[in-house]
């Protein structure tokens, strides 16, 4: 019994630690937004083209994307979908692993 209580406490500690770590990650993402309030935060692909054309003035891309999302909205839809599908799998796995551990402990 005490073993299980110890486990539960350990689990709580890890949840606490993880929440702190998540806040840290959010802070790392938010700080640039505050300090660089005038920056564009562009997706950078266009700037890449500038950097390359500075070095090689005549360069023309020799191949174009087969399909490009028709608008920024569609593009963000697809990115959200990508993140969503991934999160679903991760969440499923964590739930599965947690349930499995509970069952093993009760058995």
């Amino acid at each position, binding site marked *: 019994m005490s073993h299980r209580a110890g486990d539960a406490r*350990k*689990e709580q500690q*890890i949840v606490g*630690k*993880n929440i702190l*770590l*998540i806040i*840290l*990650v959010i802070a*790392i*993402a938010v*700080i*640039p*937004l505050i*300090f*660089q309030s*005038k*920056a*564009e*935060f*562009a*997706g*950078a*692909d266009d*700037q*890449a*083209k*500038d*950097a*390359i054309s500075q*070095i090689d003035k005549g*360069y023309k*891309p*020799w*191949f*174009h*994307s*087969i*399909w*490009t*999302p028709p608008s920024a909205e569609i*593009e963000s839809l*697809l*990115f*959200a979908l*990508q*993140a969503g*599908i*991934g*999160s*679903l*799998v*991760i969440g499923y*796995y*964590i739930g*599965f*692993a*947690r349930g*499995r*551990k509970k069952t093993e402990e009760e058995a």
Partner: protein
Amino acid sequence: MSKKIQIFFSIILMLIFMPKPTFAMHIMEGFLPPVWCISWGAIAIPFVILGLFSIQKTVQANPRVKMLLAMAGAFTFVLSALKIPSVTGSCSHPTGIGLGAILFGPTPMAVLGLIVLIFQALLLAHGGITTLGANTFSMAIVGSLVSFGVYKLIKKFKGPLWLSVFLAAFLGDLMTYVTTSFQLALAYPSATGGIGESLVKFMGIFAVTQLPLAVSEGILTVIIFNVLTSYSKNELQDLKILSEEASL
């Protein structure tokens, strides 16, 4: 304040207040000359094949890690969809490769990374089909090798698990973009200073943008590892990440 701290803060402030145009993502479609596309593709193929064999072997030996493998793939999928603002005033995204490389070794992530890159190239016009080989090499191969190597090294010196996980993911992420700079510098040597000058230029841009994101990736990987060590001890033991009694 001591001198060191003052210098540290002035560097941080300099980085924060120095906006410059930058890019820090995969190489775009059509922006790598064909000879380089083919070369990087040829270098990448053996790793992907080794990765397929490695996955098969791991799953056969430990069938219960299959779900963990799916989760590592999903982690890459999520992280490479998150374009996060950086101190340079532009956005980049982490790679999420480190987690899988620590868990499954250096080659399986070549396969999973390739899948993610194909998805992004076809559906998002992000990266590209012609640059697939180069991007697979930088993200899924160099990233994996660095993460795996750093993890093993720190483990060998008996460093704590969280530190080995953090540094593995952090350096794997950073080296991915260093490799991208190399690839671009090789393809676009500067007329005045050659490959070296281009490299300095691309790296100067890359390292700064990617640095905070690499830290984020390190932390996110530690978070997942915390969860794994509390719920998935058995799988981690199967994969020899944890010995019978070890904990974080």
